[in-house]
Each structure stands twice: as structure tokens, then as C-alpha cells.
């Protein structure tokens, strides 16, 4: 309960002073305390932009991905004829 309240107050403080923060495996953390790595993977199906944050022990604590589907599937209707 105390941890929850402290976490809430911390986030409100960051919000008030416009301090960028991110969810991590250890709760919310200030971005400036973490190492940020960004990248992009792309193939003919989709483009994936990802962002990772690492802590001072070089542990991955956050990874988000935005995948842009480039195009869907074409069902290509096939029509029969009277000749079989």
C-alpha cells in the first residue's frame, strides 16, 4: 500500500515537472536514468519500430514495439467454368 502510494506520488511529480518516464519490469522509471536503444525491422509484410530501455546493470527493463502491417491478404476469388 505504501509502495503504491509512493509510486503514485512519484509519477505525479514527474508529470508536474514534465519528466519523461516509462513502465519497466521494476515499475515506473525516469527515462534519463536508463539507456535507450531504438531500432527498426522491416520486411515485405510489416515495418516494426521498437524502443528498448536498459538499466545500469544493462538489463532490458522495457521494450515496446509498433508494427505497421503493410498490406493484408488477397483472397483472390477463383471462378470455375463449365469444362471442369
Amino acid at each position, binding site marked *: 500500500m505504501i509502495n503504491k502510494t509512493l509510486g503514485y506520488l512519484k509519477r505525479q511529480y514527474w508529470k508536474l515537472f514534465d519528466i519523461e518516464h516509462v513502465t519497466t519490469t521494476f515499475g515506473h522509471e525516469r527515462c534519463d536514468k536508463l539507456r535507450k536503444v531504438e531500432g527498426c525491422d522491416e520486411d515485405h509484410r510489416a515495418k516494426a519500430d521498437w524502443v528498448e530501455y536498459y538499466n545500469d546493470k544493462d538489463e532490458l527493463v522495457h521494450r515496446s514495439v509498433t508494427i505497421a502491417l503493410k498490406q493484408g*491478404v488477397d483472397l483472390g476469388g477463383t471462378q470455375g467454368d463449365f469444362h471442369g
Partner: protein
Amino acid sequence: MANTQAIGETAKQAALGAIVDGKALKAALYLVSATTNGANSAYTATGEVSGTNYTAGGVSVTNGNTAALTSPTAYWTPSANIVFTTVTLSTAFDAVMIYSTTDTNRNIGVFTFGSQTVTAGTLTLTMPTNNSSTGLVRLT
């Protein structure tokens, strides 16, 4: 002027509309190791991802679009991005199945992308432009 053999375009639109128009849809994610494909007649939990804040069956899909027609192609795309918020999916996944809960979880389609993981983060699947050349499901 010769006659041309063809399936009726509005029939294609009606066929697509019958499976998507006004339906309640969901999106589920599948592991790289899974074999989910068009042969799955309905949503399956086999090979589905699991992790923090991910609920089996996935998330709801916003379905404000109806099947449209731009001659000769009928097409449809979800009307909003599909978002999995603050999840941890540690085992690599590379596919999403969109299925209709209105029609006993009928599989509408499986869409693949490059292998990904998510750690205490958000996965956003942005939809292609809803038109006859890039729409998510197209009947040509």
C-alpha cells in the same frame, strides 16, 4: 463487345461483408513456434502467447468499417490500431489472428510479421490503408 466471365463484384462485397460487417472481433497473438494458419477454422489457444497482462483470447478489435468495393476488389480493414498495453511477452511471437466472436470465434485471418518480444511495454499493430490494394482482407 464480348462477354466476360467474372464473379459479381457486389457478390464479393456481400461475401466479405457476411463475415466482417458489424461483427465483434478479437485479435490473438501467436508464438513463432506455432503453426497457426488459414486451416484453423476458429481461434485456438494452441501456440498463443502468454505473459504479464496478456489475457488468453487477446484484445477486442475496433470494427467500425464495413466491407467496401472498388471495382473489382472488395476489401476491409479494422478501423483502429490493435493495442496490447503494458504487457510482457518474453517468448518470440510473429502472428496475429483476427477472429469473430459473433460467429463462434471464426478465424477471419492470420497475419504475420517479423519476430518480436515485448517487455513491460506496449505492442501496437497499426493497420494498413483501407483500400483495394492494401486493405487487410481483400477479395479480388
